[in-house]
């Protein structure tokens, strides 16, 4: 009995480690290739030997990645801030305030998640063209601030489990709904807000399609767009391509490694409450 258990555990961990290897290896390979001198790249050695750092200055000089970081950060931070505000307000109302038609409105909001992005993309593009917002950050920021059914859903699930007694006593003290929202609900929601902020940060940062169609001038390019154009120009220079990928990914990965617990918990939360 004991040895069969040990055997099972060994097999279990072997499989799990193999899978972890496949998810991590491409990243290692990316970094390793970016540090190899051009003529050793096709040798496919596991370690770079010697280590060649020249791809990185080349990438930084021949692409807009650094400026892209500035643009990406502006767009993403503004969108996340706006989204948190509107989603949390709506989530509070859906979870704690009774009003007529609430169920129907919530169902409609959830229904938007089913609409494929492509369907709304074309009319939105036409709308933003007419507003002359194309080639600016606005088409990327404004919609994200105003609608995020996933965010409302996640926060509402979390808020439902907050005790009503806090709200009751606040109302007895004469607090307005806004006051309750701001001073009671929001502080209690910090973990859920953080998880949502992280998930949406990644989503908005990596929104390739939106950035592709709305950002035309190079000065407005985000990191993701800069990488895409770099690939088109230098697609056979593997060392440089890998360096470009590394530069674009490393900040996000570092952010992820520090906050990964929140991501995982946030997603687990959204699934369980479904």
């Amino acid at each position, binding site marked *: 009995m004991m040895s069969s258990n040990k055997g099972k555990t060994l097999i*279990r*961990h072997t499989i*799990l480690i193999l*899978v*972890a290897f496949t*998810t991590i290896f*491409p990243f290692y*390979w*990316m970094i390793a290739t970016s540090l190899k001198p051009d003529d050793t790249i096709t040798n*496919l050695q596991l370690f770079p030997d010697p280590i060649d750092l020249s791809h990185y200055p080349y990438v930084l000089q021949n692409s807009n990645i650094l400026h892209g970081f500035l643009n990406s950060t502006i767009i993403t931070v503004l969108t996340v801030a706006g989204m948190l505000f*509107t989603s949390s307000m*709506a989530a509070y*109302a*859906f979870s704690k*305030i*009774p*009003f007529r038609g609430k169920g129907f409105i919530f169902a409609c*909001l959830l229904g*938007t998640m*089913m*609409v*494929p*992005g*492509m*369907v*709304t*993309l*074309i*009319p939105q*593009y*036409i709308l933003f063209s007419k507003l002359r917002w194309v080639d600016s950050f606005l088409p990327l920021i404004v*919609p994200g*601030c*105003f*609608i*995020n059914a996933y965010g409302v859903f996640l926060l509402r699930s979390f808020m439902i489990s907050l005790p*009503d007694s806090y709200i*009751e006593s606040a109302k007895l003290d004469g607090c307005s*709904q806004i006051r309750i929202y701001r001073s009671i609900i929001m502080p209690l929601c910090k973990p859920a807000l953080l998880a949502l902020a992280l998930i949406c940060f*990644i989503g908005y940062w*990596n929104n*390739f*399609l939106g950035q592709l*169609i709305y950002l035309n001038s190079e000065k407005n390019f985000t990191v*993701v767009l800069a990488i*895409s154009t770099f*690939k088109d120009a230098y697609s056979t220079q593997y060392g440089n*391509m*890998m360096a470009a*990928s590394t530069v674009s*990914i490393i900040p*996000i*990965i570092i952010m992820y490694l520090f906050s990964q617990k929140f*991501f*995982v918990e946030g*997603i*687990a939360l959204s*699934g*369980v409450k*479904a």
Partner: protein
Amino acid sequence: MSDKKSSFTKKDSLWGYIMVSPQIIGLLVFVAFPVAMAFYLCFTRWDMINPPQFIGLANFKSVFIEDKDVFWKTIYNTFILLAGIIPLTVICSLGLALLCNKQIKGLGFYKAAYFLPMVTSAVSIALVWFWLYTPDFGLINSVLAMIGIKNGPGWLTDTSWAKVAIIIMSVWMKLGYYFILFLAGLKGIPRTYYEAAEIDGASSFYVLRRVTLPLLSPVTFFCVVMLFIDFFNLFDVPFVLTRGGPAYSTYTLVIYVYNQAFEFFKMGQAAVSSMLLFIVVATVTAIQFALSKRMVNYDVQ
């Protein structure tokens, strides 16, 4: 809802409406109105330069009949990719979650590792996969050569293997997310069920089939619905890896719409194909919900 209406006044109701209004405005302006407009666009010719002209059903004719080689190939490709990505993702992520369902060392590490591909942009990591998939000196074919498979597949340059390449990369990216969802779902199954089954002497396979999977069905259902919706939004991976090639072999419906709209500026035709996309997603989701009544147990008793 509870009967606490007595402590909520009409004024509170008003605040309720005010607080949901930004999201509702967003819904109307950025979703409902565009969908209606997309419907209208199906019947117009509009290239963004000249004003739109009403042309009745001509767009439908262009897409389904005149463009039929590309269009039906697109449908075929979309179907193949769907049939590859969805079952594979479910099986792999569920399998991994089942393996992780005990108290095992390093669970935090595994979670972090499996979720890692999700946070990177497909564009950035696609460059790496592009390099891995290179037929002559990419790593994948070199490893295959080492185990005796010379002349590995052409991957991104081969019309059949390109689809496989996309399936592999897509599953790789999504695995972590669905793994987390399944893991959370498994944790929600009370231990008492397992204990009861153990007392009755059930084999672990039996437990899996008769206890775990049925109790997991709400989560599985949620995952499959999300996978479908996700799939019809999949743009980055096929676009960056193959741009729909070679020879239209990885041309999905989403890429088709994109090209019609933003390469050829045929807004009317793009609208027709995007409405088709919408109908497919809505229908599939509706079917899933209908089937769920029979196959999903929400009742934990």
